[in-house]
């Protein structure tokens, strides 16, 4: 009997059509827990660094985590791993929704998809019956539309479906995998599905998922439930509304967008509009949102309502969440929120990342205005019209070209970094907001923040929103506020962090960039990463854990819940070690693919005031703290401490670690 996990993976070879249900080694759960942890291990073992993103050998692993399909609230993430066509590192975008629980109820922890199909197919998993089915009739269909079409043709209204749209079919580097109200968006998983010609994966499961000590698990969960209720009733004071609660940012609930619209950049991460949130704009935006959001919705087994079912002016329903509500309007400099609701509907059916894509379109507009792209690039053909000249029309036109890879869209579809280099002629200077070839949040700030410097530069996620969370985004202005904040902070891994916060001030010696000190920053960042790694192994939503201040899940209750669920009897030290092991294996995988210190930097203009010496010290200190060499590669000593001696052997064999020097 296996507990918390099902103990089986589904191995699907799209080239031969072979499907196998394979029992997994229980030892892997002890070493890596599950979810992202065990997926990294699969990639390490099977996908050599020579494999390129669109090679048949680039495996796509769709994984549940340890807590999906248990009564643990908010354990609903599905993590999809692959070598990204954009960053060439091991990407792991995650989605909420309902997929991973259903997969476990069908009896599988992961779906491992290998090679490519000749024709368009989709995978249908119904407990022990698994089929590769023809999908030629679904080609060109929207990512949401496809989910319902598949449920209808299977006559299974309760099947959960993850699907790609046109963008994935055409291998756009920002193509997402859409499912229910959520999506795996970052770093191009949709393109890998498209490359393999797998349009969708549908699953329906009606089996039991077991817990080792169910009653004890429920006892520990009681504390989590009470804390959820407490936090929902008691938002954190003195922080921005959006950071005060739990769950993902409650963008569908809150209509106050002063903070986003005036602090985030408009256009191609370019312009700050400090006066935007006027009475008139506030009234218009509020009215539009209230008329458009039809219902607040959640993911599987989660009491929050981070998502919204929306329909703009009687248009088709779709589901949205988070910052996607604003990204298109802001990138296009359109002062009307309705535009965002309209274009996001089309973008969701196309299946594209709503962080990266608007920036790509805004980048193209900037190049046109700078004369680097010309009317020739925006011209029509026999199949489509020329680009309209108004802001809204231009964005719709560019989006259509990108997802179809038509004309200039074919170049833009690879994202800003690649497009800038393909276009040349000075376009490279307009690529100012990418890290490791990946578009970042449109934020440009004043003074370097040492914590964010480390998170931006070093994390394997390459997306800040999935790295930060446990530590306030800025110092509290007054001593009283700081004292009030630390008073009730049971989530802290160690009491000494309280002093760091108490000493952290907005101005003076104890302010950024020199405080928190590099050593303190390393500890804080390490804590944030650790919790993200635990969440990603359990597939608990970061919104209820690592991504929010004072969350219901933390390092002190996780070991109890994991122990009761799995029977492993893991303590805090043991859990930290597993999280560390997973992170180091992931890092080594990316090092093996060529990632070095030279790649570890934030967007050049992210902060106006930079401090090269301090930045070097930050990186040196953090690397040392993590047990990595000065090139950002885990040392043999560190790897052996984490039972990853075989990784050190491999890195030495490849010359990435120098024998005897590390």
């Amino acid at each position, binding site marked *: 009997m296996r507990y918390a996990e099902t103990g089986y993976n589904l191995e699907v070879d799209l080239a031969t059509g072979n499907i196998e249900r394979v029992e997994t080694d229980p030892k892997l759960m002890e070493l890596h827990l599950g979810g992202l942890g065990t997926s990294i291990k699969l990639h390490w073992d099977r996908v050599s660094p020579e494999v390129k993103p669109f090679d048949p050998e680039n495996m796509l692993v769709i994984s549940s985590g340890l807590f999906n399909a248990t009564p643990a609230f908010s354990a609903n993430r599905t993590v999809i791993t692959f070598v990204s066509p954009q960053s060439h590192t091991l990407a792991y975008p995650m989605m909420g929704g309902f997929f991973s629980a259903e997969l476990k109820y069908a009896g599988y922890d992961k779906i491992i998809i290998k090679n490519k199909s000749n024709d368009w197919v989709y995978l249908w998993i119904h407990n022990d019956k698994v089929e590769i089915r023809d999908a030629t009739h679904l080609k060109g269909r929207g990512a949401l539309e496809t989910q319902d079409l598949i449920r209808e043709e299977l006559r299974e209204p309760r099947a959960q479906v993850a699907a790609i749209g046109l963008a994935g079919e055409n291998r756009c580097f920002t193509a997402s995998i859409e499912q229910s109200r959520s999506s795996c968006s970052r770093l191009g998983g949709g393109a890998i599905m498209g490359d393999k010609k797998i349009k969708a994966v549908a699953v329906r499961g009606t089996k039991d998922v077991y817990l080792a000590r169910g009653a004890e698990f429920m006892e520990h969960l009681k504390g989590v439930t009470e804390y959820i209720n407490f936090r929902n009733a008691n938002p954190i004071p003195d922080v921005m509304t959006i950071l005060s609660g739990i769950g993902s940012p409650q963008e569908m609930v809150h209509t106050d967008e002063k903070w986003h619209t005036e602090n985030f950049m408009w256009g191609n991460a370019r312009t700050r509009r400090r006066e935007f949130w006027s009475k008139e704009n506030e009234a218009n935006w509020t009215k539009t949102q209230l008329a458009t959001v039809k*219902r607040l919705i959640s993911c599987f*087994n989660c009491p929050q309502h981070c998502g919204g079912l929306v329909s703009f002016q009687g248009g088709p329903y779709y589901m949205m969440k988070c910052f996607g509500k604003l990204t298109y309007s802001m990138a296009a400099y359109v002062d009307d929120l309705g535009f965002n609701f309209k274009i996001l509907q089309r973008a969701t059916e196309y299946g594209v990342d709503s962080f990266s894509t608007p920036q790509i379109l805004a980048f193209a507009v900037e190049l046109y205005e700078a004369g680097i792209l010309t009317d020739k690039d925006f011209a029509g053909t026999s199949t489509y019209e020329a680009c309209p000249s108004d802001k809204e029309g231009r964005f719709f036109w560019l989006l259509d070209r990108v997802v179809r890879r038509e004309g200039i869209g074919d170049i833009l579809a690879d994202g800003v970094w690649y497009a800038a280099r393909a276009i040349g002629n000075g376009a490279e200077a307009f690529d100012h907001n990418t890290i490791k070839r990946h578009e970042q949040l449109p934020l440009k700030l004043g003074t370097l923040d040492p914590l964010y410097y480390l998170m931006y530069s070093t994390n394997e996620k390459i997306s800040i929103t999935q790295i930060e969370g446990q530590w306030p985004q800025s110092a509290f202005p007054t001593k009283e506020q700081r004292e009030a904040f630390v008073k009730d902070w049971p989530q802290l891994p160690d009491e000494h962090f309280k002093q760091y916060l108490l000493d952290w001030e907005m101005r003076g010696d104890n302010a950024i960039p020199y405080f928190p000190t590099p050593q303190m920053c390393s500890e804080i960042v390490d804590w944030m990463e650790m919790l993200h790694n635990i969440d990603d192994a359990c597939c608990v939503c970061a919104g209820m854990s690592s991504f929010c201040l004072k969350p219901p899940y933390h390092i002190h209750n996780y070991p109890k819940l994991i122990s009761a669920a799995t029977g492993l009897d893991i303590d805090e030290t043991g859990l930290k070690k597993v999280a560390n092991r997973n992170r180091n294996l992931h890092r080594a995988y990316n090092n093996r693919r060529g990632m070095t210190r030279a790649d570890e930097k934030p967007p050049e203009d992210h902060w106006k005031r930079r401090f090269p010496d301090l930045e070097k010290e930050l990186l040196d200190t953090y690397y040392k703290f993590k047990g990595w060499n000065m090139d950002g590669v885990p040392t043999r000593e560190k790897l052996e401490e984490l039972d990853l001696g075989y990784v050190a052997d491999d890195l030495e064999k490849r010359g990435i670690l120098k024998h005897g020097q590390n």
Partner: protein
Amino acid sequence: MAKIKKKIKTIKVDADKCNGCRACEVICSAFHANPQYSSNNPARSRIQVITHRLKNIWLPVFAGEYAPAECMGRDKYIIDGKEYDECGFCRASCPSRDLFKEPDSGLPLKCDMCESDPPLEKPMCVQVCLNSVLTYEEREEEVEDNLEVDAAEVALRSMVDKYGMEAVMDSVTRYLQKE
């Protein structure tokens, strides 16, 4: 016939508030697992959230009485422009659909309001519904004193309906021989 006082238990469903999370399904199946909480499986849940996301339909429905035969006709509701499934609001476990049946045996499921010893303050689905979609209410009514059919007899009757008396008798005989 004599009148007796009967406790009426109601779960009020405010479907407009439902965020579609299905925590009710998870906890129902976990509570009724044997041993309790040792497993969960929403397919065994006695509450199901009927969902059509793009039609804005999220409708929690509780398992009601077992019905051995289909209705002569089926109903279809349209409310506020939303068309619900055939028999969408019906709580019966019946031959026309696979709702409210044990996934392995096909035997009917019925909500028992989590009756247990000691009794719960309110059913588990109500407890985990943190959005107050489900509200538990109790009241007393005077009713005629009918003989209650015990649970085993209900189960037996449904097995006979499903498999026929002969097959059930054969199974019982074989089972007794093994014992």
